[in-house]
């Protein structure tokens, strides 16, 4: 019945988008709060390099992406746990390295240009039922781990030194987080592609953080912004015949900038339950004085 109203490929695309949006939105809060955005970008590009390498070697591209990503995630976890300036620079360098490696490998596979393009920008309209099942399984594992270790991850995100001093196994949880980022950036290859994975990991979480001061609310808002970006992006792209992942990325980024502007210029008035320009609010305070 539904299939008669909405084409099957669109139902699958919506399902894949929902799963991707929710997973990246939750993980994104930790990525953004812990300044792991560069690490996320490096892993997303390594996934691309791994997938292309998989093609070249005749192995499953996902397996290639996952293997390379897991190796790099261990390296990044080792570097980012100290969070010194030097380690940040090396992670930045790894981002450059993974991009350069991906570009070089892509140039070697001329006959697979379309396939490679798919890994670069994703193909959410072309996902199969197997893709969705794979996506759902990895997302379920990721969300379950995040929920199970919720308070530990939150502690480490806020105060890594305190967590270590009070007996939390910081190294274990930090490695676990990096491996989760590696897993999610790998599964996002099919839906939004390697480039857009970074946007989905960062933009909704950064937008949510601008609005709320509560960790739980930030996660909920990040999911809402991520879903909104995906649906709006998909709708606009279908209407204007644009690339789906590109439009999703644009919408997510636009939402971030619009939110940033509103937060900077307006303040929520609890009394009148309205957004009031900051200037008028400060004048009100002066009048009261």
């Amino acid at each position: 019945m539904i299939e008669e109203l909405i084409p099957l490929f669109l139902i699958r695309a919506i399902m894949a988008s929902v799963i991707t949006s929710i997973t990246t939105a939750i993980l994104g809060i930790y990525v953004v709060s812990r300044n792991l955005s560069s690490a996320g970008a490096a892993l997303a590009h390594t996934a691309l390099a791994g997938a292309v390498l998989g093609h070249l070697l005749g192995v499953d591209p996902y397996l290639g992406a996952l293997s390379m990503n897991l190796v790099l995630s261990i390296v990044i976890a080792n570097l980012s746990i100290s969070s010194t300036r030097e380690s940040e620079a090396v992670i930045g360098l790894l981002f450059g390295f993974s991009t350069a490696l991906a570009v070089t490998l892509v140039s070697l596979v001329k006959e697979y240009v379309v396939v490679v393009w798919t890994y670069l920008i994703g193909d959410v309209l072309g996902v199969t039922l197997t893709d969705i099942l794979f996506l759902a399984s990895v997302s379920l594992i990721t969300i379950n781990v995040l929920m199970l270790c919720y308070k530990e991850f939150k502690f480490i995100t806020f105060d890594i030194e305190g967590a270590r001093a009070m007996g939390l196994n910081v190294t274990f949880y930090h490695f676990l987080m990096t491996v989760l980022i590696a897993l999610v950036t790998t599964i996002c290859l099919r839906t939004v592609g390697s480039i857009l994975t970074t946007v989905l990991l960062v933009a909704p979480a950064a937008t949510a953080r601008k609005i709320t001061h509560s960790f739980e609310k930030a996660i909920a808002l990040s999911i809402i912004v991520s879903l909104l970006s995906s649906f709006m992006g998909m709708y606009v792209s279908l209407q204007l015949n644009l690339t789906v992942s590109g439009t999703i990325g644009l919408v997510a980024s636009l939402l971030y900038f619009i939110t940033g502007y509103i937060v900077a210029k307006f303040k929520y008035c609890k009394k009148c339950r309205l957004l009031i320009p900051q200037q008028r609010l400060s004048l009100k305070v002066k009048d009261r004085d």
Partner: protein
Amino acid sequence: MKVIEVDSVTVKFNGRTALERVTFDIVTPKVFCIVGPNGAGKTTLLRTILGLIKPVEGHIRVLGHDPLKEPKEVRKLVGYVPQRASLNLEVPILVKDIVLMGRAVKRGIGAFSKRDYDAAKEALKIVGLLKLWSEPFRHLSGGQQQRVLLARALSVEPTILMLDEPFAGVDSISRTLIMDTLRKMSKQGVTVILVSHDINDVLEIADEVMLLNKRVLAIGEPEKVLKYYLSRAISKR
């Protein structure tokens, strides 16, 4: 059994000495203050006592436990208040979340129980901030933030309380409240180890003061250490 035994501990980072043959004991629960300039090795000493740094020589015992061999046992006993500068204030987080973190280690994997919530509320009540339970941490003053961190350490129900520069950037009201709380805890049998770069910050509260500048310069009653500190400062001029 001694609370803390530090015997001839030397710590080096990349060949540079951070602590040199540091020796002292804390025999009974008291307020023990470590004072020294920036880079004197105060935080390094706390971290070494916790087993987070391995000394190149010497050994440490915390209530009979070796922090390097039994880190879990040692850290279970300790409530730790870090320097505020080390916190990630970018994280959207509420006061209750922070105080509950103290219970996270005790609880292990899984959700917090009612007992965890009660202990966290009780700890926040001790520092006089229970009404801020659901407030964003970012909205608090420096002094209030420090008291929340103290509440987090208290929610562990610790035997030893370690505080790293607890009076830095703290208003006088919060300062008095923190001191009162620490005194109260000490009377209840909790050993308080407090680190500060300013000797004046700790004179009011300390039972014993140790002057540290990579090695132990003086240790004893606050007045005697202050005399030594002043004579040293005058002779330097």
